[in-house]
């Protein structure tokens, strides 16, 4: 068969969402709606101290006065925030002490997600925290980490066990009034992960959190806080999935990173929330605020592979406050069918000799819209700041769109800022060339897409690079499974 645009498009339409199962676990879910009572109830449910409850209520009150942003290049029906339940948890009050206590249905879910906790333990040496709906259900490897003084636990526990750390850092990078969704998250977040690496400690394994929305009609609002103290190092990965549902589910997360002097944080995301069906019905609204601060000689590196969600609004950013600090952003964003993504980064150069690198790869298929939006800001005292940005778009078919919105604000004459952008299309001639060598259409597309994304895939930790590569193939290849 010849590979025409028509056929290419048709094939892409048949994509199936692999993780669209629902686990029948008994859940405790709050009634829908949002008011001060609900906010207080969430806080009470988590046995939080008073200062946390007040912090949430302040955020809620600020949120009431804010407007949902509409500057992004996305179109969607604004969620009815009174129609969402803000707390859902697999029923069973206590945190599991060992895997034996975990609901077998839940364990089955992990297997379907391709995470056998046991295997994770043995093979990859990845410590993992798993958050289903709103609650963290299993954290592995805690003892091993504790010996090094590393704290890796659900944030709800950190609020109780390490209040001094949480109080000091939460909202310090992303104030609760930062933006509409961050304010909402600050008011209603129910769990997430907390990680603290003490001075001079190199975290010996990848830390990982797996997020999943399970219950219908709920939103997920997780909060992640990673603190790398002076001279420490940590590599952190988060993965996300959700069942296929007709209605749109809301995910509004906040991630704050703090890299103290000489520290390094590598934060990788593989986002595969349900993207909606091929008519554009359902799917997750992914409105996420991620930001990190770099002190002297420190480094924060964001790597993201975004293949899911109906609408994505996300700009993992770096505030390069310290001298000689480094910010990096490596991104692959895939949109298919009716998906819309507006994603990119902000690099704020404040310190001297700060450097940032932005590599963004957008892949659009079907009728999707894929936008890169990035800001490079060099403040007046940021001498010798350097930035390199590269934004590449790959288009499949004639009905999708790729957009690039780069913003540059330089207030220091010594700044060197480079921006490169390319747009290409998978051509019939490329497909035929592969076919002639015995490579079928699906494999050919996978090969071309992986080649296009290679610079970013290379930045992922080894085990996850393989997973991400597979995800790219599933997202674009039709019936491959």
């Amino acid at each position, binding site marked *: 068969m010849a590979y025409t645009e028509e056929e290419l498009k048709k094939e892409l339409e048949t994509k199936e969402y692999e993780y669209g199962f629902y686990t029948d676990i008994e859940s405790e879910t709050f009634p829908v709606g949002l008011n001060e009572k609900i906010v207080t109830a969430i806080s009470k449910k988590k046995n939080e101290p008073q200062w946390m409850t007040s912090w949430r209520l302040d955020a809620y009150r600020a949120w009431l006065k804010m407007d949902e942003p509409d500057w992004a290049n996305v179109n969607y029906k604004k969620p009815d925030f009174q129609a969402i339940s803000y707390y859902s948890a697999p029923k069973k009050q206590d945190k599991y002490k060992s895997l034996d206590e975990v609901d077998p249905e839940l364990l089955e879910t992990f297997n379907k997600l391709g995470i056998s906790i046991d295997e994770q333990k043995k093979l990859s040496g990845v410590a993992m925290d798993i958050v289903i709906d709103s609650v963290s259900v299993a954290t592995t490897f805690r003892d091993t980490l504790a010996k090094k003084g590393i704290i890796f636990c659900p944030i709800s526990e950190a609020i109780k066990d390490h209040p001094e750390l949480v109080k000091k850092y939460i909202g310090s990078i992303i104030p609760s009034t930062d933006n509409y969704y961050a304010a909402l998250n600050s008011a209603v977040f129910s769990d997430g992960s907390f990680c603290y690496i003490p001075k001079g400690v190199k975290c010996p394994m990848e830390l990982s959190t797996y997020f999943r929305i399970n219950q219908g009609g709920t939103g997920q609002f997780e909060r992640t806080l990673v603190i790398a103290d002076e001279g420490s190092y940590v590599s952190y990965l988060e993965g996300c999935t959700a069942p296929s549902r007709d209605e749109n589910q809301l995910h509004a997360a906040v991630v704050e990173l703090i890299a103290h002097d000489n520290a390094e944080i590598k934060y990788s995301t593989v986002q595969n929330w349900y993207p909606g069906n091929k008519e554009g019905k359902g799917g997750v609204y992914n409105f996420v605020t991620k930001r990190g601060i770099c002190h002297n000689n420190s480094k924060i590196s964001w790597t993201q592979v975004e293949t899911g969600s109906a609408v994505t609004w996300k700009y993992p950013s770096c505030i390069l406050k310290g001298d000689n600090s480094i910010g990096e952003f490596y991104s692959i964003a895939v949109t298919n069918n009716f998906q819309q993504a507006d994603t990119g980064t902000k690099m704020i150069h404040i310190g001297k000799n700060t450097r940032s690198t932005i590599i963004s790869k957008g892949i659009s298929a079907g009728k999707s819209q894929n936008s890169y939006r990035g800001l490079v800001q060099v403040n007046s005292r940021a001498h010798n700041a350097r930035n390199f940005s590269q934004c590449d778009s790959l288009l499949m078919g004639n009905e999708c769109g790729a957009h690039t919105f780069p913003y540059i604000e330089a207030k220091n004459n010594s700044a060197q800022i480079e921006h490169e952008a390319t747009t290409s299309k998978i051509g019939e001639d490329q497909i035929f*060339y*592969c076919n002639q060598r*015995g490579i079928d259409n699906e*494999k050919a597309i996978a090969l071309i897409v992986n*080649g296009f994304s290679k610079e970013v895939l290379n930045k992922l930790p080894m085990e996850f690079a393989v997973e991400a590569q597979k995800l790219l193939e599933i997202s674009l290849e039709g019936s491959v499974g």
Partner: protein
Amino acid sequence: MLTIENLHAAVDGKSILKGVDLDVKAGEIHAIMGPNGSGKSTLASVIAGNEVYEMTKGNLLLNGEDINELDAEERAHKGVFMSFQYPVEIPGVSVTNFIKTAINSSRKAQGLEDMPASEMLKKIRQKAALLEIDTKFLSRSLNEGFSGGEKKRNEIFQMAMLEPKLSILDETDSGLDIDALKIVANGVNKLRNKNNAVIIITHYQRLLNYIAPDFVHVLHNGKIVKSGTKDLAHELEAKGYDWVKQESS
């Protein structure tokens, strides 16, 4: 090996091949020559299964088996290889990764496991040495930034790795200087054996100075109008295509 019977083909409704007959046996090298627009490249593409070209009439038989309805990749699995006149670039995909994917795709179609990495590596080294290719070249992105000569050499390298039964070299000499031409021709000569066959599509006879064909055919206006031995190529060189055009009209 390959039997072409009364082949008609069109592109965008325009008839290009108007009844081509050809019989290529194992161990033979056939050259197909002809002026621009005579349908040479169309013939190569139709044999390879590029369905931008519509086969409107006739038969393609590979070792007696009708391959008319087979997809390009299925033909490739059966041992058909085409060296492209304009090889495409695939950024980010190394020559090695590409060739590995190609070999394992064919193996999969034949019900075989992936080729073990050690075997693959050995084969790559062997073939690279045979074609005097620097192995550093193999880590580069496929055809990206390659010179004309490198592209064609890469095509012949893939041919060496895939060990096809039937190879079609479409204008392999175009864009090559004399040194590159010699290297490519040498490669083809080294890969030639009694079990495979080669069809060389060319406008000029200069490649035939280095690869000696058993038969030479002249394509004009979508038909083979003259067939002969190597001498025919020399005659064409001397007299030009007008000679054949006049004779056939």
